[in-house]
């Protein structure tokens, strides 16, 4: 089967699941589908660095968390009617999703710029350890900063609004997340074929030749890292809105690991790999979680098997004939 077809089936399947659940009046299933869309979005972000760029970032929870806190901070100020800042200029909190998304994207992109600029001075195993460490730094910062809930996190009582939609209705919120996911997938698909994407992939394969044609691998990778951080940050804002809750756990190393697991279970450098991976993860959590409190053991075993024996993930197994776009 061709990868293009698998992608279409995956997205259609996700949409159909949510619509069917809507028809059968099962809001919990819609929420699960929404969770899949959001986590897939986070994975799509990571897949730009991991798949296209070949940079193993184990710190993407940093951006996921920043997106979450962008939502939490803005919305908590709005719900308490306290301004975010009074001097030198008055900034009010907001409950409007588009504004929150913009803030989440810009702030996680800025964080990715700083973290990326430092981390990309290293390669290989160093890069993994450094990104992991910066993620942990933000985790401890979120815990020790009492203004926004510290260790307890922040609760937002009413989901933020989007002009013209009732976001409290699960299917409408799902629709919003699904459309965002599709738009980002379209963007990433274009990115992979654009000169930038080709140069980025070349910088992963043979950095010396990229340099020889006058491009800077460092800059290419940094731009990719920033794009990737911004997308994961957007996913973080959506995830916080889904739960109406943010906590330092969004910054934890487990979150980084899990986002990476979505990408791997689905297939690295596959456009819709994260969608397949996130769906599989949520299904496993749902089924195995019902079977046993200790379902992470089975997840670990499955992951080991995928890494040791089934390289290429789900999509890699189905679309064997077609190589990942690298």
């Amino acid at each position, binding site marked *: 089967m061709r990868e293009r077809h698998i992608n279409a089936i995956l997205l259609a399947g996700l949409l159909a699941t949510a619509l069917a659940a809507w028809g059968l009046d099962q809001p919990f299933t819609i929420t699960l589908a929404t969770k899949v869309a959001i986590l897939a979005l986070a994975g799509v972000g990571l897949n730009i660095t*991991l798949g296209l760029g070949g940079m*193993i970032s*184990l710190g993407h929870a940093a951006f996921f968390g920043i997106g979450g806190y962008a939502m939490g901070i803005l919305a908590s100020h709005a719900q308490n009617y306290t301004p975010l800042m009074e001097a030198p200029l008055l900034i009010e909190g907001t409950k409007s999703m588009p504004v929150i998304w913009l803030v989440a994207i810009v702030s996680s992109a800025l964080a990715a710029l700083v973290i990326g600029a*430092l*981390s990309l*001075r*290293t390669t*290989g*195993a*160093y890069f*993994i*350890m*450094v990104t*992991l*460490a*910066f993620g*942990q*730094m933000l985790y*401890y*910062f979120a*815990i*020790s*900063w*009492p*203004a926004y809930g510290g260790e307890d996190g922040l609760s937002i009582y009413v989901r933020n609004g989007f002009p013209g939609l009732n976001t409290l209705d699960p299917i409408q919120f799902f629709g919003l997340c699904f459309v965002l996911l599709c738009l980002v997938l379209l963007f990433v698909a274009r990115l992979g074929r654009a000169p930038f994407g080709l140069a980025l992939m070349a910088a992963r394969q043979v950095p010396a030749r990229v340099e020889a044609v006058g491009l800077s691998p460092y800059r290419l990778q940094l731009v990719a890292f920033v794009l990737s951080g911004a997308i994961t940050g957007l996913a973080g804002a959506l995830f916080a809105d889904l739960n109406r809750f943010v906590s330092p756990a969004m910054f934890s*190393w487990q979150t980084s*690991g899990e986002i*990476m*697991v979505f990408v*791997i279970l689905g297939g*690295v450098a596959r456009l819709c790999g994260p969608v397949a991976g996130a769906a599989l993860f949520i299904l496993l959590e749902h089924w195995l979680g019902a079977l046993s409190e*200790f*379902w*992470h*053991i089975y*997840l*670990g*075993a499955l*992951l*080991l098997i*995928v*890494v*040791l024996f089934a*390289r290429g993930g789900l999509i890699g197994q189905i679309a064997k004939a077609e190589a990942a776009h690298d």
Partner: protein
Amino acid sequence: MSSLLLFEQVLNGLQLGVMLFLMAAGLTLIFGVMGLINLAHGSLYMVGAFAAAAVAGATGSFLLALAASLAAAAAAGAVIEVGVIRRLYDRDHLDQVLATFALILIFSEGTRWIFGSFPLFLDVPDYLSGPVTLPGGIQYPLYRLVIILAGLVIAAGLFLLIGRTRIGIQIRAGEADREMIAALGIDITRLYTLVFALGAALAGLAGALVGAIQSVQVGMGEPVLILAFVVIVIGGIGSVKGAFIGALLVGLTDTLGRSFLPGLFGLFMEPSAATTVGSALASMAIYILMAGVLLFRPKGLFGVA
């Protein structure tokens, strides 16, 4: 008073530092010799602590508990090396990260399954508890002092092992050229298992020693693992000397930052804001230190450029 407090905090920093060294030394050896990044090292730390707590609970002997932590962590290390890790040496770092992440999940949930979710407690034995008076009239807990000394003795032993013994020569040769030493008739597979078990034993011992001053619980290993990564980035991968210097730097920066930064900010800020900013900054101090090292020495202080 201030200089007494400073001295006490320096000792606390040293104690954290030598424990981090036990973790980082194993990690850096494993990376240097086998080229493997091992996220599951924190799980071995946890295994050591749980083994010690279980044996201490059953027998009441702290020394037996320490022996158990060494044995259990070394055994767990050898088992995962033979079962899983061995297949990863020729893989890229991504596969290593994922497989060892999977091992963390299995170890953590497995431990929760066996021991339950509640923390265990490992008590400091009577003959090591209570304070001692150091020259200058400082009261300091005897157990922490023993940890520092034990850590320094193990560090010295490790340097001797690597620098002066036949096995150390093989380990260093393995870092330099693995095919060559295999050609010289050294069983490289056995050597790898040995190095991995050695690193695991050090981590397990650290877990048991620290477990007696903190609680023994699932997930205790990963924060320490990440600190050990910071140590390695600062010290340079593959360098045991770098790990030692890096560990002490990180231990001292963290401890001194936490105890003095809030006060330092109090000099020019109002107290409540100073506590907030100071403690938030203190929690980030070691990562800022790491960022500084990355700016000037991307390969770490003792890494080969």
